């Protein structure tokens, strides 16, 4: 059986359990992990070396790091409820920060969400949609499927 066939019959293969960290989810977890690493590194440098310059932005930056760490953990351990919550926060955060900070960024890009995540190829803006699709794809299915 090819992978394509197994993906089309998740109810058979996984009994509806929908592990979030298998198949495509494995790639997704890694992407979140990379963002978690970047956001953590960025926030650490900002807070350690120049916190006085823009405390609010750097705290937001740290908040972004926490969000990505939580998302990586939730997806990596197949915790759906946590994943939904964290990704919702991520989605609104990227919209709000993107809309607010735009144009007023002086020193450097202050959070991974600045300018809707343009510094990261807009990946932060796209990821919540991908996760929601992935959660839907792995939803609990009734006896007749779908």
């Amino acid at each position, binding site marked *: 059986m090819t*992978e394509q066939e197994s993906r089309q019959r998740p109810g058979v293969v996984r009994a509806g359990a929908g592990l979030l960290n298998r198949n495509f989810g*494995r790639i997704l*977890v890694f992407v979140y*992990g990379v963002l978690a690493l970047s956001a953590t590194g960025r926030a650490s440098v900002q807070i350690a*070396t120049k916190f006085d310059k823009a405390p609010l932005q750097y705290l937001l930056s740290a908040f972004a790091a926490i969000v990505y760490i939580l998302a990586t953990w939730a997806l990596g351990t197949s915790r759906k409820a946590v994943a939904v919550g964290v990704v919702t926060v991520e989605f609104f955060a990227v919209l709000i920060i993107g809309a607010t900070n735009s144009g007023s960024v002086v020193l450097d890009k202050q959070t991974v969400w600045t300018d809707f995540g343009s510094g990261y190829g807009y990946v932060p803006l796209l990821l919540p949609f991908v996760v929601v699709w992935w959660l839907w794809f792995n939803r609990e299915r009734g006896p007749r499927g779908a």
Partner: protein
Amino acid sequence: MGLIWAIVGALCAIAFVVVVVQMIRNVPASNLVDGLLALIEVGLVVQLVAGLVKLGDAPADLSKATWIGYLIGSLLILPAAWIWSMAERSRSGLGVLLVGLAVVPFLFLRLHQVWVG
């Protein structure tokens, strides 16, 4: 630094193509892929050393912490991708490697941006 980026970037591109081919043929990561990843990692260690040496003539406004952060961070990507992909030796495992191989050259770009300010 430019030379290191060119060589390692080219290796990343080659490894990327090899992994894509293996994804299409649906064969798990091979010794060739592992070898290329190891070679890239060696290149990244050279980058770390060169980058630290280069700090000697850094521009005054360089954020040294950011520069060192990217140098060290770039070392972590491929081992993490490799370990994470080992747990699922499938197309998805290869997909993880692809993401890692795309991130590394992106970090070169970032390092360059950090340096020129």
